[in-house]
């Protein structure tokens, strides 16, 4: 009699029809010559039956299968109305909120780009970029934007008023002059300190329409200063994280800032000059151009903003619109990176 008896694991795999073919043959050959193992086989068969019986006792009461929680068919499913707080992607939303907060604290850039100043630009290029002067400290006259967006005078929007007040408060100690009037020549301190970069002449709106699948196009890395020049302001980015600015020949006025997190997740921020709207046609565009700077307004906006899953190059990406910004997050989103990211965003 063969010494190599079969173990319980093999017997269970065999009885579950999960033993690979070759092993099953060997096991059957052994059973043919080993009554002891045949006996064990029957024991294990009874054990499996008993365990299934017990589990059946603990089955939930039979109930009807509810209708599909999604629409069958090729149409993509509707995005969730809101993001459940416990969704694994919740931190991504938080990061977007943080980015958006920085974005609005910065305010809107001047409509008309300041005249080029090549000497200053060169000086600026030579100087090391000060990472502390990133998004949250940028200031610009917000009321101008409001004036531009708000309905004709006489019907003030309460929220806009409040937004203007809060922005004015935020700007209080950073403005060069007390004037909040739109004036491209009056720039905030740090904006004045760095160079006003030349901006390409306005392009017809049609040419500006971002491609339907912006990621399918080729993106070329460009110097950070160039990206800044295109936007007229510092491109939005997560502070203290390596960032690469890119541009596509297909959409020259859109700047793509790519930032890779330690986890391998890639955050992509598509941005175009503020006056030109969202870097991709979006039904939320009109709303996205209003500029509520209160946190409440932001939250509201987050829910209004479009969420879209896109299948590009066979990988999944989460895209979201925040004002002039299109935020894409790609890759695994481990929960433990939330606090890390929040720290970075802060």
């Amino acid at each position, binding site marked *: 009699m063969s010494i190599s008896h079969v173990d319980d*694991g093999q017997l269970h795999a065999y009885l579950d029809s*999960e*033993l690979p073919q070759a092993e099953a043959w060997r096991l059957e050959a052994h059973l043919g010559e080993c009554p002891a193992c045949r006996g064990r086989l029957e024991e294990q068969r009874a*054990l499996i039956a008993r365990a299934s019986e017990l589990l059946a006792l603990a089955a939930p009461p039979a109930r009807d299968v509810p209708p599909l*929680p999604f629409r069958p068919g090729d149409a993509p499913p509707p995005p969730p109305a809101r993001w459940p707080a416990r969704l694994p992607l919740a931190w991504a939303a938080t990061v977007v909120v943080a980015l958006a907060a920085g974005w609005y604290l910065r305010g809107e850039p001047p409509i008309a780009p300041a005249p080029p100043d090549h000497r200053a630009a060169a000086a600026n290029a030579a100087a090391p970029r000060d990472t502390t002067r990133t998004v949250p400290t940028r200031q610009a006259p917000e009321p101008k934007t409001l004036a531009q967006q708000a309905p004709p005078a006489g019907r003030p929007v309460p929220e806009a008023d409040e937004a203007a007040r809060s922005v004015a408060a935020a700007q209080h100690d950073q403005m060069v002059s007390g004037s909040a009037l739109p004036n491209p020549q009056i720039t905030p301190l740090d904006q004045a300190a760095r160079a006003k970069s030349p901006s390409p002449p306005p392009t017809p709106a049609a040419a500006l329409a971002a491609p339907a699948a912006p990621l399918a196009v080729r993106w070329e890395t460009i110097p950070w200063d160039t990206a800044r020049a295109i936007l007229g302001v510092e491109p939005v980015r997560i502070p203290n994280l390596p960032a690469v600015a890119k541009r596509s020949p297909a959409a020259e006025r859109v700047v793509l800032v790519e930032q890779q997190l330690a986890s391998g997740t890639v955050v992509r921020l598509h941005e175009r000059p503020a006056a030109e709207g969202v870097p991709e046609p979006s039904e939320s565009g009109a709303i996205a151009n209003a500029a509520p700077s209160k946190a409440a307004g932001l939250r509201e906006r987050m829910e209004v903003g479009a969420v879209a899953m896109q299948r590009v190059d066979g990988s999944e990406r989460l895209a979201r619109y925040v004002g002039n910004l299109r935020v894409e997050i790609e890759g695994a989103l481990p929960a433990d990176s939330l606090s890390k990211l929040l720290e970075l965003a802060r």
Partner: protein
Amino acid sequence: MPEDLAEIYRTTYRALVRFLYRKVWDVERAEDLAQEAFARAVVHKPESARGWLFVVAANMARDDARRAARERRHLTLLKSDPASAPAVDDAVHAETERSRVRTALEQLTPRDREALLLWDAGLSYDEIATQTGLARGAVGTTLARARRRLVEAFAGGERDEHIARG
């Protein structure tokens, strides 16, 4: 993709509810979680949706169990004395059996229990291996142990009850 999911929903929904029920012990909660798992599958479009659903469902059930433990909701349910209702009542009897199996299941190690519940939900050894991190060859051994312990724990629970009743 949604068509595939619709098919998976049709074939797997009940198994997923059953799987979840044995973790949260509340059929409505189990159904909610199963629905949410499918809703997430619609968003994420995982490649092997079935295995993915069970991974996500297991995580959600774990979170849910933690919260429930805080609320002490289930503890109260468990302690409801079966003797307080007439034992002849079929529903009560079924409930008693259920809570005995539950008690027995809770005596298994988490990994053994997970493998057993996944198998019972219809997952293959390969899928169980992927999900639990077990080697493919260790799934049979794990299931053998899990089944034996379940049967023994259940029998042990019955014995204890008889002793307690005198």
